[in-house]
């Protein structure tokens, strides 16, 4: 199918880091089943580094590929760097997404933030709310990839 780039299809067919981390330090879930996408991100943190990342996704091909790509982009990186991950970076790494699928990359960005936020809260680590604009407001994402 030529709806998606080769990169998207590769990550969809062979998703990296699928699964669950049972003793995760942070878990973030974004999206809702009503809209047709849910992403759940599990992180393991050691000395501020994301030593392991896993995901589960209910959603279309680009949602699965975006989650997979996002986990690859943050695994082994410091939290500070993971929080810089944007949906644009995920989309570019996938060699682009169709316009009506950009929200999938937004979900991936939000899922990472949600997992880190959960980790901060569990460990009573102070954080700057401005860094979590997506994960905190728990908004309904729209399907144009724009935050409402």
């Amino acid at each position, binding site marked *: 199918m030529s709806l998606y780039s080769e990169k998207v299809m590769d990550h*969809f067919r062979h998703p990296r880091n699928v699964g669950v981390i049972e003793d995760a330090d942070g878990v973030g879930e974004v999206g809702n*089943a009503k*809209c047709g996408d849910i992403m759940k991100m599990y992180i393991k943190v050691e000395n501020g580094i994301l030593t392991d990342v896993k995901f*589960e*996704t*209910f959603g279309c091909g680009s949602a*699965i590929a975006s989650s997979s790509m996002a986990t690859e982009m943050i695994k082994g990186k410091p939290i500070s760097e993971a929080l810089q991950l944007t949906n644009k970076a995920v989309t570019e790494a996938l060699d682009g997404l169709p316009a009506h699928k950009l929200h999938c990359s937004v979900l991936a960005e939000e899922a990472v933030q949600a997992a880190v936020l959960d980790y901060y809260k569990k460990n009573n680590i102070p954080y700057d709310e401005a860094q979590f604009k997506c994960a905190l407001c728990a908004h309904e994402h729209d*399907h144009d990839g724009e935050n409402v």
Partner: protein
Amino acid sequence: MFVYADHAATTKLRESAARVYAETAAAYYGNPSSLHTVGQKAQEKLTECRERIADLLGADAREIYFTSGGSESDNQAILSAASFGARKGKKKLISTAIEHHAVLHTLNKLQKEGFEVVLLPVGENGIVSPADVENAIDENTALVSVMLANNEIGTIQPVEEIGEICRRRGVLFHTDAVQAVGHIPVDVKKIGCDYLALSAHKFGGPKGVGALYVRRGAPLSPLIEGGAQERGKRAGTEDLPAIAAMTEALRASIADMGATDALLRKLQDKLIDGLSKIPHSILNGDRVRRLPGNTSFCFEGIEGESLLLLLDDKGVCASSGSACTSGSLDPSHVLLAIGRVHDVAHGSLRITLGEENTEADVDYLLQVIPEVVAYLRGMSPVWRDLQTGKRQFIL
């Protein structure tokens, strides 16, 4: 293995229809509107096609108008009936919640222009109640439009009963028969409709050609202005090769209908029984009153587009009513109308078989579909929540 299982989307051009197309294009290149011999030869061919299509539908040749396909036919029927009604002060249009967008969007447009549109609900079985149609009709009603068979879930509507009601109440009746013609017996007189839309590529004919049956005396106004083709109701030089190929495809489909129906019913039974074994799944639409080729299911905990992509990788062409495949926010309006909630409707799969499919195809489908469903459930946080009791099963 390759299995084309999306015949409701479109069918392969029949070999005999392809032959007729090529022969007609070569031998009848004249413009049917031309006065000379070459033109008149084309005109005769056109008349012959019209007569044969009419015969196959139980109509009179003067009641058949060639169009570009189902959407155009639906548009023209509805717009004609609506403007006729409006001139008499009748501005109510009655239809169902499960119509094709060619009907629904035309009705939406008319609603914006001041018409009252009533979309009747259907039961969980995907079938509209004739009593609901009867109750909705009042003195302001211009048109009732009910599809003959649904494109997504295959349910066959009680159009003969609805036709009888409409005749008795003096209301025009249109039926979108795009999915039905060539697949189940269709007779316009038995249905008692004023309009019937059909599309060639759904029964082995070419794309871009169809027809509209209009009962003699029913109002019809052109969508396309210009020359006097189609008795002034549809301007534009006729696509004679396509019309001839459609005629052949319809002839052959109807001639083969008995054998095809027997095969498809057998394959359908096997497919439905097999897919029903997947836990937390459900058949969409009535088990019996459905097109022989249609099998539609919802699988809880997964999303349809990823299901389609993985099936495509395994050589299976199918379809889904998930939001992601429609490009809109909501899953299929048909699945929502039969009571599937959003979460479940996203995980739908439509398998539509045709006469070239075999039992081996169904065996293969019954091998790969459960595998792919299980694989996607294995990475679905929704499925995990269902398994651990955090979320309640709907199916």
